[in-house]
């Protein structure tokens, strides 16, 4: 059977390989040069548009270190004022990640084309995921502060929305790759789609779902630490204050504590995720 030739193959003709018995095979030319060309053009264009200059980085880059050095030595006695906002941040991340991830399950089911046969529902749910994914966390946090007032509830809400969109997309893509055999068997014995999904699909997606949610949670701890900027509670509040008052040594203390917190959480989550991979 003849393979169809695209526009690219018409310009860059495929190579014809002939075997010793006279049979021929067409080897298409690699697409890599085209891809590299497009990436280069995009880079040049974006440098042009943003007015990015290497000379500015060379000239003023050292000031970055200047600010960093001002943070040291950190003010150790400030640590007692950090714990409360730090725990608020972690609480916001845990609760927000949990709510968002759990909410993502039913919506991901509706967005999976192998489970839901109605194209309208699938497209609408995916559109909903796309919209929530394009909302910047800082913006949702700010809107949430208008609704729920200043504080951690606003931060939790915005983290839940972000987790929902992120975990949801990965989840519906994962659902579309599962083995549908057991689902089919459940339907053949008279189960509704929802029941067949919970018995046959959920056990298959669970390890991936937990791993993705944990990965998202790691990132959320970092996101949550800047949400204080818009009044959504947590450690961002005092980061904002110390920068405003130019208490760089206190800022240093916050950065050190935050660093260790993030590292500990990442290691914990990585450990759990590795355990899960072993299960598969």
């Amino acid at each position, binding site marked *: 059977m003849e393979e169809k030739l695209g526009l690219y193959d018409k310009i860059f003709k495929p190579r014809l390989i002939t075997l010793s018995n006279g049979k021929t095979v067409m080897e298409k030319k690699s697409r890599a040069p085209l891809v590299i060309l497009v990436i280069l053009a995009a880079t040049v264009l974006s440098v042009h548009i943003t007015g990015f200059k290497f000379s500015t980085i060379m000239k003023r880059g050292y000031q970055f270190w200047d600010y960093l050095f001002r943070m040291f030595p950190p003010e150790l006695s400030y640590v007692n004022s950090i714990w409360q906002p730090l725990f608020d941040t972690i609480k916001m991340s845990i609760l927000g990640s949990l709510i968002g991830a759990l909410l993502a399950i039913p919506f991901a089911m509706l967005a999976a084309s192998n489970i839901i046969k109605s194209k309208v529902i699938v497209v609408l749910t995916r559109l909903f995921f796309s919209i929530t994914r394009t909302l910047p966390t800082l913006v949702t946090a700010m809107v949430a502060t208008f609704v729920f007032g200043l504080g951690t509830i606003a931060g939790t809400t915005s983290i839940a929305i972000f987790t929902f969109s992120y975990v949801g997309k990965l989840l519906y893509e994962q659902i579309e790759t599962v*083995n549908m*055999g*057991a689902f*089919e*068997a*459940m*339907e*053949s*014995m*008279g*189960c*509704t789609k*929802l*029941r*067949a999904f*919970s*018995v*046959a699909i*959920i*056990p*298959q997606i*669970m390890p991936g779902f937990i791993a993705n949610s944990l990965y998202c949670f790691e990132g959320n701890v970092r996101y949550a630490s800047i949400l204080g900027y818009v009044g959504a509670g947590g450690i961002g509040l005092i980061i904002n204050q110390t920068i405003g008052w130019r208490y760089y040594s206190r800022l240093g203390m916050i950065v050190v504590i935050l660093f260790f917190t993030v590292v500990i959480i990442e290691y914990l989550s990585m450990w759990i995720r590795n355990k899960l991979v072993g299960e598969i």
Partner: protein
Amino acid sequence: MIKFDHVSKIYPNGFKGLKDVSLEIEQGEFVGIIGLSGAGKTTLIRTVNKMHDISEGSLIVDDVEVKNLKGKALRRFRRNIGMIFQSFNLVTRTTVINNVMSAFVPDLPFWRCLFGIYRKEDKIKALEALDNMGILEKAYVRCDQLSGGQQQRVALARTLAQDPKIILADEPVAALDPVTARQVMNDFKKINTERNITVLINIHHVDLALEYVDRIIGIAAGKIVYDGPSKKITEAILSEIYGGDLSKVGSASELERHD
């Protein structure tokens, strides 16, 4: 009783899966359906529980017109029909007993299905079904630890737990080695005779079919070309079912190349 009356099935792409099929299958029969790949064996079996719709004609199963079934009525109808698949279709990530208990899922409250919390009487019923299939000792093993033959027995136990009147089996032994295939065929025979369950089985291995089933239905290109006792099958009938030259049956790859 299963009654096909001038049933045709046309797929959306125009392919005719079944052409004017008429048959009657009594309760408790053990029927083998043979034919080439793509002849319509799977289509025939899957119309019985409406996993596939029919396009024309009428299909009546236990006094119910199958093509009119929808939603809740269809699901209730399917409770009485078990299905066995070539690739077993178990939830491999969970234990054997959980798979067997999934037969009760349609009748349980939703939260029990979601969290996999089953009643004690369901557990006992599932364990009895496993005992019936001779794999009771594997009840708490994860399914992906089992061999193919054992997995097909778990699938059979799941179907038995469902307590069906009819079992549809789509190439149940095609993925198994000859010895295991024979054991699974014995299990089917046992279920058929002990419980008077109608068994419809699609099968590639003609020799196995002739050995175990009472009645053979031969399909070629969507049409029934033979329907009768397995004892009366002759070389000539087989060559009609398998499209002329019987020597081609031995080498399937040869056939596919001519497609």
